[in-house]
């Protein structure tokens, strides 16, 4: 028996199919979840994927955060359900206050799409245990609103508690404070990041490496061994 990992589709989601594929490549079973449906179909974990849910109207993730499916995701995440937010999913997690801080437009005001070098800073979360702390990876980045901001106290807290999970290396693509590319909650079950690991799970496409695959094998191992 393998783990069942849900992928939520909102109106405007783009990467739900790629995310399902990445889950399958890792050896788990992807389960499609629908934004209007409160039922999580008894999945063992949830991924909020990239895209432009509700056209990014109001703020990126602000409307998706109030969708029926998120009522259940928020409740269960607080109870320990592993949740990964990628790009728009990260924005939704900050809007839902499952992760601290907020996301704003890139400081250079342009959409950006590039292969991005990251350092894995925290390999103890549900979604990063198959990495080594300090490991450097290349995965695609593509976003308009990727600038992570938080007040000084929150930043200090994140740094002190080792909750900066990923940091941009060599180049900060969006003006994120402290070069933050991704963070985790204190319990380590909720992780969000701007770059796209689901686009780097097969050598044929993406960065030509499989640097994103450990996200999905990490959670699979955790769930199967649980």
């Amino acid at each position, binding site marked *: 028996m393998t783990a069942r990992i849900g992928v939520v589709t909102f109106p405007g989601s783009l990467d739900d199919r790629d995310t399902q594929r990445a889950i399958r490549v890792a050896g788990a079973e992807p389960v499609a979840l629908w934004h209007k449906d409160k039922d999580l179909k008894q999945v063992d974990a949830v991924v909020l994927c990239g895209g432009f849910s509700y056209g990014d109207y*109001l*703020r990126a993730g*602000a409307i998706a955060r*109030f969708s029926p499916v998120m009522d259940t995701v928020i409740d269960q995440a607080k109870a320990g359900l592993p949740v990964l937010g990628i790009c728009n999913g990260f924005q939704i997690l*900050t*809007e839902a*206050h499952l992760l*601290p*801080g*907020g996301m*704003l*437009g*890139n*400081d*250079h*005001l342009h959409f950006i799409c590039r292969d991005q070098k990251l350092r894995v800073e925290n390999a103890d979360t549900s979604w990063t245990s198959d990495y080594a702390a300090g490991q450097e990876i290349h995965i695609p980045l593509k976003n308009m609103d990727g600038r992570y*901001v*938080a*007040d000084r106290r929150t930043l200090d807290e994140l740094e002190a508690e080792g909750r900066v999970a990923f940091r941009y290396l060599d180049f900060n693509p969006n*003006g994120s404070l402290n070069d933050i590319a991704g963070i985790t909650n204190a319990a380590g079950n909720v992780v969000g990041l701007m770059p796209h690991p689901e686009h780097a799970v097969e050598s044929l496409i993406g960065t030509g490496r499989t640097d994103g695959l450990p996200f999905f094998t990490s959670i699979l191992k955790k769930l199967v061994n649980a």
Partner: protein
Amino acid sequence: MARVVVDVMLKPEILDPQGQAVQRALPRLGFEGISDVRQGKRFELEVDGPVDEAALARIHDLAESFLANTVIEDFTVKVESEDVVAGAAK
């Protein structure tokens, strides 16, 4: 019917690159003497029924939970008088 206006601005300590881009364009357009521009959002809510304390409290909650993200933004709630609303419509 009355109009309630909710203004939402980025917190002062947060960088506003859009506002900066507008400010940098001003000298090219012949506007001098404007040292800073910050860009925000304005929501105009047409309220059915009286804008009493209870209605304002509900709008305040709406602004705090949805129209603004108070992690990164501040907001104000103002009632526009019906005269002002009528005048603005002319």
